[in-house]
């Protein structure tokens, strides 16, 4: 079936279309059983889309680092957590207006990203892949424990941002402004990023590094700069995601990066870890899937976290390169 193969190869809109189609089928099935009124289904859909786009925003960071360095940045979830603490202090200690706080966080968090890259990954640039992976896990522990030491283990309450948390009610479907803002930001970020990568010189350099590290170096590309830039972009997106996460789920703890980090990693792999669009697709699949699992099968709702990992296993068995991924033959 070449046509289906083509759809899945690199067409984002087609993939999203398929997801929505699957959702619609699920909905139809549910409504046929008379389990779910339309309004309730729409409510679930809104919940899922907003959760999914949040996952997508964070998953992009995993994908970017993976494409460039072929390593999984396990500290990404903890950088996301650090960004929430930055946001907390900006909003509550310095009493900044939220837009300013958002800018501050989006500037400060990448600094952490650069530091991690500079001290944990760059010295291992020519070391075996496993060493970098272990270094990433170590960094993750380090950030978690540093946050516990500095900020305490008790949850901090993210200050309420009324213009983001205000509830909009259409018919009987309720959602917060932030639930609208998140997909919007994700869409804008994706559009800018795709343009940047394909149209600008730096973007081309980035792709060159991703494709062949050694050759790019010979061609005069400043590898370290490009990699640092990758971490800046990934961390900035995690920071924006973190800020929105805080507005939506206002409890901040040092360990809060672990689960979202793992899920977004899964999202990146499911979507195809070598493609930024794949991260977005994966994020939506996980977000919507999680919500729908709880919606349709309340009896197993305690296992919603497992959903991400079941999807991971299935994808790895069926299409190891991910939904949008293309199989790359490793050079020997």
């Amino acid at each position, binding site marked *: 079936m070449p046509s289906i193969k083509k759809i899945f190869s690199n067409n984002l809109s087609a993939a999203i279309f398929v997801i929505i189609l699957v959702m619609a089928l699920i909905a139809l099935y549910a409504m046929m059983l008379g389990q779910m009124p339309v309004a309730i289904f729409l409510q679930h859909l809104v919940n899922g889309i907003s959760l999914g786009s949040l996952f997508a925003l964070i998953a992009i960071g995993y994908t970017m680092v993976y494409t460039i360095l072929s390593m999984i940045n396990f500290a990404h979830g903890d950088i996301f957590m650090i960004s929430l603490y930055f946001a907390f202090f900006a909003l509550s200690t310095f009493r900044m207006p939220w837009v300013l706080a958002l800018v501050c966080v989006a500037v400060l968090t990448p600094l952490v990203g650069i530091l991690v890259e500079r001290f944990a990954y760059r010295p291992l640039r020519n070391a075996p892949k496993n060493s970098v992976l272990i270094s990433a896990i170590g960094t993750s522990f380090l950030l978690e424990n540093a946050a516990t030491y500095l900020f305490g283990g008790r949850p901090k309450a993210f200050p309420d941002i009324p213009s983001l948390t205000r509830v909009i009610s259409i018919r009987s479907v309720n959602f917060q402004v932030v639930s609208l803002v998140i997909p919007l930001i994700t869409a804008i970020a994706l559009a800018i990023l795709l343009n940047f990568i394909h149209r600008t010189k730096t973007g081309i350099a980035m792709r060159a590094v991703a494709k062949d590290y050694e050759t790019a170096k010979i061609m005069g590309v400043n590898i370290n700069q490009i990699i640092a830039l990758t971490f800046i972009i990934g961390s900035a997106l995690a920071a924006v995601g973190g800020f929105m996460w805080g507005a939506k789920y206002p409890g901040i703890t040092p*360990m809060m990066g672990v*689960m979202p980090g793992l899920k977004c990693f899964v999202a990146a792999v499911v979507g195809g870890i070598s493609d930024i669009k794949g991260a977005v697709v994966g994020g939506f699949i996980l977000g919507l899937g999680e919500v729908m699992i709880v919606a349709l099968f309340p009896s197993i709702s305690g296992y919603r976290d497992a959903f991400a990992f079941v999807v991971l296993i299935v994808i790895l068995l069926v299409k190891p390169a991910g939904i949008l991924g293309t199989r790359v033959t490793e050079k020997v």
Partner: protein
Amino acid sequence: MKRTMAMLLSALMSISIFSGCQSSSGGDASASDVIKIGVFQPLTGDYAGGGEIEVEGIRLANELYPEVLGKKVELVVVDNKSDKAESATSVARLIEQDKVTALIGSYSSALSIPAGNIIKDAKVPALGATCTNPQVTLNNDYYFRVCFIDPFQGTVAANYATTKLGAKTAAILQEVSNDYSVGLANFFKEDFIKITGDPNAIVDIENYQTGDKDFSAALTNIKSKNPDVIFAPGNFTESALAVKQARLLGIETPFLGGDTWETPDFLSVGGAEVEGVTFSAFFDKNMATTEEAAKFFEEYEKRHPGQEAAAATALGYDAYILLLDAITRANSTDKEAIRDALAQTSNFLGVTGSTTLDANGDAVKDAVIKVVENGAFKYLDVVSAQ
């Protein structure tokens, strides 16, 4: 360079692995003039907020009563990181390494139950302050507690829901990875069905995991069932987020919870949305009648001006002074003698009233109903244990 970096990194990693295992092994004073009491509590992780207020009470009591039988009492406080396996190992460490005479802990039944067998096998007397699940002390001659247990709390909640809130149907939102939450939800369910006489009175049961942040799907399910009350016993952060999200989804149904909600974190995370929720709790200043209570509130006020002491703080305090009382009554630091003295506790007057331990080692105490009003916990009603 690379090698030094690698060494540094591995050193950092090993530090981060071991951080938090600080065991205060200071003071090599001979065993004869120091009595060590091990305190295992969640000081980091999901239950940290609860562990902290409980330890606050234990430390306060230790400051006021630093000696027993002419010996200095040394608290060895370890963090079980809100983790079930860590809780068991931390207790084993307290017993084997620190050679503690007795134990106090832990906040959350889910963290107390895994330590039960170690306590039983090592024959070290242990006293729980706020762990309410029956399993904590069941079939364990060495584990006692100074609070009521969940079958009673479930009845209190079910009675309150039916009589005061006029509920005929209820939905349950439970933290499925927490023994406390699932246990209490079950006791509530049984009593609610018994009182309403309707086997279908519980219209929905939704589960979530400790640490979850998003409850929108479960709440949307509950919304579609339109219950009269939502019973949501569970950890404070998760519960506060759940109530918040429910209100934002337009669910105006009253929420009812359990003792764990009485934590400062519940109010700070929940904000304006948790106004009006009610829950069953251990104790309130309004019930304080004993001299010990007057002393407790006075000393607490001195240390934390303008702050109201939580019930968990009072119970932590009571656990400590009851333990000291048992040691005095045993007139020995022998673990068996202390255990026997604890088992015979009757009408011991602490902050939270009179404590008598029954055959299971559980206290029988009145429950309080509290409500969140203007960003604070307010006393609403008292429910007698009889």
